[in-house]
């Protein structure tokens, strides 16, 4: 196992470095002189100069890159142009909200997908299976930026059970954003559980168990489901990563004060250090979550370590 973990960490290093380089180069992709663009059209020369200095754009590229990596190693993500506060502080204050939303969505997805996927696999081609498949189709096709407003119309405006936006009303505030973000994941997981469990139910060991007198329920839940869940765990991990990017849209719909909303706000105000840092934190979280789900996969399915 240790060898497997070390190998995965070694694989992760060049990819992380590549991503850091990509984020570093973002500011240099700004058309024209980045300092002029950031200071704004018609800015005074001294303002442009101070932007150039603040971002270190007056130094050679290689030095900028080395400084950037050095600052990151010290946990320094830069200062916001808008507030002059440390961007890391702003991110730290927004991060829990995004995580809460991601876990909320995951909870919704599991709550829907497990029963639906299992029933669908057991009663294949029945009306309930067809219903589950239709739900999965709608779930993956419906964009969150449409589903969210529909939920608001139905459950916040026509029936004011939940707040339209914000995070002030505790769990009530979490319901609609979690549903919005969880729908697509629920659809994907339902499909996955259905296919995976149906495949296991066809295996000989399940037939043998039933032939030896184990009840059908026990054969399904004790034997087949355990094996069927292996691929589902990987998907769950990978999808948790995409929930983080999904949060950018959902947070915008519900004015949820998370990292995604901070990113979009910073883009609108051209607060580039904040933009860079937000993207960096989302991307690194995404990589870390994928890494952890890879490790988990190695633990639940020992065959993976051998590959």
């Amino acid at each position, binding site marked *: 196992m240790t060898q497997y973990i070390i190998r995965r960490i070694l694989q992760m290093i060049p990819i992380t470095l590549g991503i850091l380089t990509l984020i570093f180069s973002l500011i240099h*992709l700004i058309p024209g002189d980045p300092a002029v663009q950031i200071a704004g059209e018609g800015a005074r020369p001294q303002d442009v100069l101070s932007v150039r200095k603040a971002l270190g754009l007056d130094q050679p590229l290689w030095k900028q890159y080395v400084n950037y990596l050095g600052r990151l190693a010290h946990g320094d993500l830069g200062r916001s142009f808008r507030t002059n506060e440390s961007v890391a502080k702003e991110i730290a204050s927004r991060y829990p909200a995004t995580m809460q939303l991601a876990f909320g969505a995951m909870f919704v997805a599991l709550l829907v997908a497990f029963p639906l996927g299992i029933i669908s696999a057991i009663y294949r081609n029945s009306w309930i299976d067809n219903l589950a498949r239709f739900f999965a189709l709608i779930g993956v096709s419906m*964009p969150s930026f449409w589903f969210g*407003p529909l939920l608001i119309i139905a459950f916040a405006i026509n029936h004011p059970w939940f707040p339209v936006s914000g995070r002030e009303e505790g769990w009530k505030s979490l319901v609609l954003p979690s549903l919005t973000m969880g729908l697509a994941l629920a659809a994907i997981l339902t499909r996955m559980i259905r296919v995976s469990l149906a495949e296991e139910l066809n295996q000989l060991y399940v037939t043998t168990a039933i032939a030896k007198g184990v009840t059908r329920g026990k054969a399904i839940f004790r034997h087949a489901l355990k094996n069927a869940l292996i691929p589902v765990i990987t998907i769950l991990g990978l999808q948790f990563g995409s929930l983080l990017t999904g949060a950018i849209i959902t947070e915008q719909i519900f004015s949820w004060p998370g990292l995604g909303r901070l990113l979009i706000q910073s*883009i609108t105000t051209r607060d580039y250090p904040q933009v860079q840092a937000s993207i960096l934190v989302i*991307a690194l979280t*995404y990589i870390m979550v994928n890494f952890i789900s890879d490790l988990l996969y190695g633990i639940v399915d020992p065959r993976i370590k051998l590959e």
Partner: protein
Amino acid sequence: MKRLFRNFAFTSGLVLTVLILLAAIAAPLLAPHDPNVPIGNRLEKPSNAHMFGLDELGRDVLSRMIWGARVSLRVGFSVVLLASLVGVTLGAISGYFGGIIDVLVMRLCDILLAFPGILLAIALVAVLGPSLNNVILALAVIGWVGYARLVRGQVLKVREMEYVTAAKALGAKSPRVIIRHVLPNVINPVIVMATLGLAGAILAEAALSFLGLGVQPPTPSWGGMLSYGRRYLGEANHLAIFPGAAIMIAVMGLNFLGDGLIDALDPKYRKLIR
């Protein structure tokens, strides 16, 4: 071909896609009003006179949706064309020649794949500035990777085939072997990926426009209309409902088309592409 048309997913997807394509092409003939000119009271509800109602500036929602189809399809087709052109070329070169080119291209793919796609698109549009062309560029930058990996994998298999060895033995140069012998044999899964990619690009453009990073007003785009409509959910929910439905129908149609193509061409493609 017969088998293709007997496939329900394919035919229903084809019908939906053709309808949207026709709407986009014939927008000037089909749209009852100018999409950018106010013609009545703002936020007017749907009625016989205006089937989908009027928007926050009193413009006809139906006309804006018909013109919006142009933006969606323009982005979709441009992204798929650019991404597949770059991806297929790099994937073919990478797979055929191997060596350092292969290592470089594949490591770049790994980095781009490790980066959440839409986040990279947002980042690129954020620095390049929101516009139709920049959206196309950003989505193509994240889109080519899939084609490159797919084609590389296929080329690795095909290059060992006897007909490729025969072509080489007859003195054919590498570009000729790739273009005449290798690519025609790996193109089917690329077509399927492009169909599904079209749906993905339309959805991503709508998402970027929804976030205010896509096509800028007054040009009508489905995502942009939905974004503005969201502000009037209480008094005029038709502004959000209709453009959202258009996005979903378009994406569903193209996904059906892609799924149908997979089933008809070779169900094994599902594993390759998804």
